[in-house]
């Protein structure tokens, strides 16, 4: 659904680090070079390059089956890439597991929400904080003072994090019992709790209505500003992508077909043909 009035509300911050012409000499947080993966002889992603600077919001778009989620799976090491390198903070991440990648600063959400459904909202977020809560198995069993102190701090942090999305009242409920929108938000909070430097959001607005989507847009920008982190998001809602992303990367058939600012992408004939459709002559926003 198109809602042009909403767009004016989100004036994107000046694009500091446009892809591909970014300012030289600026530290990059996440870099992917020539990334590729094959599944049983079938190439799913090939020659994928991406540079993310510390507080940038980047959109990853493309038709269904273009390999967007596969790119996320590579960046978070759910799949090990067949080719190419991923640098995190300038350091090679070869051989790292998903968990190690998270500790290095990559957190993500999933297209089909993956919460710990039988645990409470609070425990879900405490799991996000897992590597920031420091006490051993023995302190946990024997309930040593450290246990009480750390758990209390964790609980405070949980409340703090929940308040970002105004969900504090939901803390004691089972995550699986939350409504859909709240589950999506909880997943983002859980990812944030891990203290990432890069947040990967896989279709955060899927299944949301326009007002929820615009709230989400606001929240993503707020999260970026508060936590000073980079956000890479996959999204089909062009309103959202064009509204908040500073750089956009378009994938088709596992390859990058275009990169640039939202306005560049909107005017790129290759992209329009592959993805946005030939509706430019209507003078409409490409997304309709």
């Amino acid at each position, binding site marked *: 659904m198109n809602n042009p009035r909403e767009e004016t509300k989100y004036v994107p911050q000046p694009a500091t680090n446009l892809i591909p012409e970014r300012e030289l000499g600026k530290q990059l947080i996440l870099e992917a070079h020539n990334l590729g993966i094959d599944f049983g002889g079938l190439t799913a992603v090939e020659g994928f390059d991406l540079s993310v600077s510390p507080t940038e919001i980047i959109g990853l778009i493309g038709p269904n089956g273009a390999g967007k989620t596969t790119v996320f799976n590579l960046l*978070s090491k*759910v799949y090990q890439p067949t080719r190419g390198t991923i640098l995190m903070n300038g350091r090679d991440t070869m051989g790292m*597991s*998903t*968990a*190690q990648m*998270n*500790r290095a600063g990559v*957190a*993500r959400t*999933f297209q089909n929400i*993956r*919460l*710990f*459904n*039988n*645990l409470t909202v609070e*425990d879900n977020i*405490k*799991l*996000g904080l*897992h*590597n920031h*809560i420091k*006490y051993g*198995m023995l*302190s*946990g*069993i*024997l*309930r040593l003072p450290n*246990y009480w102190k*750390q758990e209390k701090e964790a609980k405070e942090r949980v409340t703090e994090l929940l308040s970002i999305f105004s969900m504090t*009242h*939901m803390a*004691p*409920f*089972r995550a*699986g*019992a*939350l*409504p859909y929108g709240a589950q999506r938000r909880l997943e983002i909070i*859980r*990812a944030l*709790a*891990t203290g990432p430097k890069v947040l990967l959001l896989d279709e955060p607005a899927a299944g949301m209505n326009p007002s929820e989507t615009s709230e989400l847009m606001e929240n993503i920008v707020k999260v970026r500003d508060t936590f000073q982190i980079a956000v890479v998001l996959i999204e089909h809602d062009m309103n959202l992508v064009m509204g908040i992303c500073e750089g956009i990367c378009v994938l088709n058939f596992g390859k990058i077909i275009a990169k640039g600012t939202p306005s560049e992408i909107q005017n790129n004939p290759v992209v329009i043909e592959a993805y946005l459709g030939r509706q430019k002559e209507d003078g409409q926003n490409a997304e309709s």
Partner: protein
Amino acid sequence: MRKLQKSTRESIFTYAIVIVAFLATQGLMLSGNISSALTGQLVPICAYVVMAVSLNLTVGVLGELSLGHASFMSVGAFSGVTACISLANVIPSDPIRLVVGMVIGAICAGAAGFLIGIPVLRLNGDYLAIVTLAFGEIIKNLITCLSVGVDSRGLHFSFLTSSSMLNLEEGGTVIINGPMGIAGIPKLSTFTAGFILVVVTLFIVMNLVKSRAGRAIMALRDNRIAAESVGIPVTKYKLMAFVTSAALAGAAGALYAMNFSTIVATKFNFSTSILILVYVVLGGLGNIWGTVIAATVLTILPEMLRGFNDYRMLLYAIVLIIVMLATNNSRLKLIPAWLKKTLGSKTGKESISNE
């Protein structure tokens, strides 16, 4: 709003059940209102409760099906009894020797759990289950082939040969005698010792579940990929759950063995593993007090059915099937929602509007 730490209420309730049951049984024993057959069952009940609670850590909390839990009991039983017999002169006090036996049983079983866990936990689902079954059979087989003796120079081991090959000195004793197992076990186990082990087990398992490590273990159960994505090391926590579970089973094994004068390795076979699994499933996956009750009731049940003579095991089977059908059939809404939820049914989608 169902606030105040539901889990805290649950653990208080669990401890209360166990303590009340212990005191009631003690009272009945003092007043002589308990049959001798049941008195003989008291230590095994405690051992089975510990077995079931520890298996619930693997199956209910970690979410991996283990079909070889009895093998850890076996390792604990044989190592614990060996320790108790060989330390007879060093530690004269029976209760201390029993504690040492249980600790050694727990350590050996935990070590076995660690060794088995490293390969096993790389697998998933039914494949993991079949490998635990395989390890259970292997351990049973290995212990059947093992002979151990003790003399003044220490312990002697021999494998696949008869106990006469142990080269024992004059005055040395054979402890484990190959397929014949161990005979002449000192009866060190008491109901009180069993009760204490149950309480310790409950303390360890329930506190572990409600700590950072326990949350991580449950996260692996609910969604492994999501758990990895928030930085939880899979192998570490899977192993932690598996080894803790094995160690507690080892302590239970030592307790169990020292209640009888003889034990053989074939006692701890696949059927025993399955029996314990039945307690866990009927008690409710992840539900500790349910497991305690299920293990107690189902251990006593065959005794209670003794009046039916030959038919008792048949009745046991029928009861088991009917309970499973009644608690899991979506058409027969026989049971309250809480039982359904504890059994891990997917239908627990209650809305949160009741806040």
